């Protein structure tokens, strides 16, 4: 007989679905099946059971091959690397629990590290914009119950947040939006005809990189002021029409993603999107929300925020917290060669940083803590496999709307494997001893 565990949290994207059901074997050791999850979430649970999973730390040898080492040796190497560095970079933090992040920050404070999370290549520009102009936001519950105008700007939830539309933004029947998607007008702004765009009532196939112009045009159209014939490839009639529909709603929401944060205007795109939201509030109620990627990147921002006052790019090397994206951000530091070791946990910069940054990373002393084999672990000097948070160990996570949700443990990790938090706690203890000895 199998057992079914209900209300399981999905540790993949920022939607943080909390209605998964996982069927485990009678002895509670093996995951048999996953229900309610999207295809990516199910893959995450089932991959944790893979027979070829690495279960012990591996150290890179001079010939490039990897040799198995014990967790004790891994803790010793990591602690010494961090304690002996002048300016270590501690990057990642988005695929782990808030508890583990907190221990990591304690280490960073002692060794004078720079702590940066994956927002640096994701919604970092959003965070800058929020500091510049503020943000009128809401929770996903409000969207589900109220939203009748939904804009997806530069994001493709069909692929990146597969259950977002069915759980919160388009399809569910809410208290005020009681006819589900029939109550809602869906707008998509994207240079491709994405699968999300194919579902939309209105798709604006914008010229890539011209989001700032189109956002400005919307702000103009809302006031019924003059527009040129086309803006960013969109005829002005369509913009005026959309502006009227947006104004006539009772509750609107703009979801935005990498299409605006990673194009050339970066944080200025978001500034303008937030100001558009503000302008729309003169006519109706409007909110705006970032489509956060990793399941706990929001949590990393929260924990860094309450501990040091800044959500990412926190430089502790001078003994107090400094923040200056462009200077204290991972890619700038790596490319300029300003760090002398790198510790990565819960992220894969090897696959998701520009190759010039990865090259610098590969030349430095480095530790990668990750349950998977990734391009990062294969260029790092030490790979420490750990238990999957949200599958093999619980912990606190933040959804994209800043709602904290406690992830649940479903099965035990393979025997003898440490969790992120256990590994970090042991490194923390050893770092303390080494720093004491230095004094």
């Amino acid at each position, binding site marked *: 007989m199998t057992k079914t565990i209900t209300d399981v949290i999905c540790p*993949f994207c920022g939607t943080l679905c909390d209605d998964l059901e996982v069927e485990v074997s009678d002895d509670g050791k093996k995951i048999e099946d996953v229900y309610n999850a999207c*295809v*990516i979430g199910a*893959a*995450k649970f089932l*991959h944790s059971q*893979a027979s070829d999973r690495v279960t012990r730390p591996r150290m890179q040898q001079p010939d490039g091959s990897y040799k198995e080492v014990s967790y004790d040796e891994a803790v010793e190497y990591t602690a010494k690397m961090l304690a002996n560095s002048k300016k270590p970079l501690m990057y990642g933090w988005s695929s782990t629990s808030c508890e583990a992040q907190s221990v990591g920050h304690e280490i960073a404070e002692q060794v004078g590290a720079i702590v940066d999370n994956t927002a*640096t*290549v994701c919604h*970092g*520009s959003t965070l*800058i914009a929020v500091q510049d102009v503020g943000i009128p936001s809401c929770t996903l519950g409000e969207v589900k119950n109220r939203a009748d105008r939904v804009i997806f700007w530069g994001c*493709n939830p*069909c*692929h*990146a947040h*597969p259950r977002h539309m069915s759980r919160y933004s388009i399809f569910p029947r809410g208290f005020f939006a009681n006819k589900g998607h029939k109550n809602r007008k869906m707008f998509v702004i994207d*240079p*491709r*005809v*994405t*699968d999300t*765009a194919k579902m939309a009532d209105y798709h604006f*196939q914008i010229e*890539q*990189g011209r989001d700032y112009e189109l956002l400005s045009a919307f702000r103009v159209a809302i006031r019924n002021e003059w527009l040129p014939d086309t803006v960013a490839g969109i005829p002005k009639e369509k913009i005026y029409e959309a502006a009227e529909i947006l104004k006539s709603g009772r509750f609107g929401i703009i979801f935005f993603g*990498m299409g605006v*944060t*990673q*194009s*050339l205007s*970066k*944080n200025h795109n978001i500034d303008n999107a937030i100001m558009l939201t503000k302008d729309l509030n003169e006519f109706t109620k409007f909110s705006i929300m970032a489509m956060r*990627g990793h399941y706990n990147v929001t949590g990393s921002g929260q924990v860094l925020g309450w501990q040091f006052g800044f959500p*990412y*790019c926190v430089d502790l090397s001078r003994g107090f917290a400094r923040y200056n*994206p*462009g200077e204290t*951000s*991972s*890619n*700038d530091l790596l*490319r300029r060669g300003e760090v002398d070791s790198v510790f990565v946990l819960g992220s*894969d910069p*090897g*696959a*998701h*940083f*520009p*190759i*010039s*940054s*990865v*090259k610098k990373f590969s030349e430095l002393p480095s530790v990668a803590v990750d349950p*998977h*084999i*990734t*391009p990062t672990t*294969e*260029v790092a000097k030490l790979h420490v496999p750990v238990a999957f948070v949200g599958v093999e160990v619980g912990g606190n996570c933040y959804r994209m709307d800043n709602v904290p949700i406690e992830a649940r443990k479903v099965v035990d990790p393979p025997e003898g494997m440490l969790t992120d938090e256990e590994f970090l706690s042991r490194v923390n203890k050893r770092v303390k001893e080494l720093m004491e000895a230095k004094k």
Partner: protein
Amino acid sequence: MTKLVLNLISGRTIQQGVAMEHGKEKEEYRKACGIIELDPSDLKKLGAWRNTNVRVTSPYGNVVVKAVEATQGPHPGLGYIPMGPWANSVINPNTYSTGMPTFKGVPVEVEIALNEPVLSSIELVQKKCRGEA
């Protein structure tokens, strides 16, 4: 040989997400991300059949990927490589003091590279780091 000039963007696809969770060292990940999605009209301009290996070159690097027909098109003039080491070999790493590399909107040239292989993610990153690719 014909060189096609395009504007390149990258981003997530659901195939990329699934393959990533199955393991980035696996063949599935290379098949999901070691591709460039081109509009049918651009494939025609290039003179390439679907599923031909091509070399993508930008001012910041180059990489060999498989040219496939756009799944979320039409988008003439725009190339799409799913996020991953292949896209990151050619995107613009400059952050212009924001901390954010310019992952979208990179001018690239695409040319047919019939006999060059699409490397696996691990091999690609290791070779790029050693300066061999």
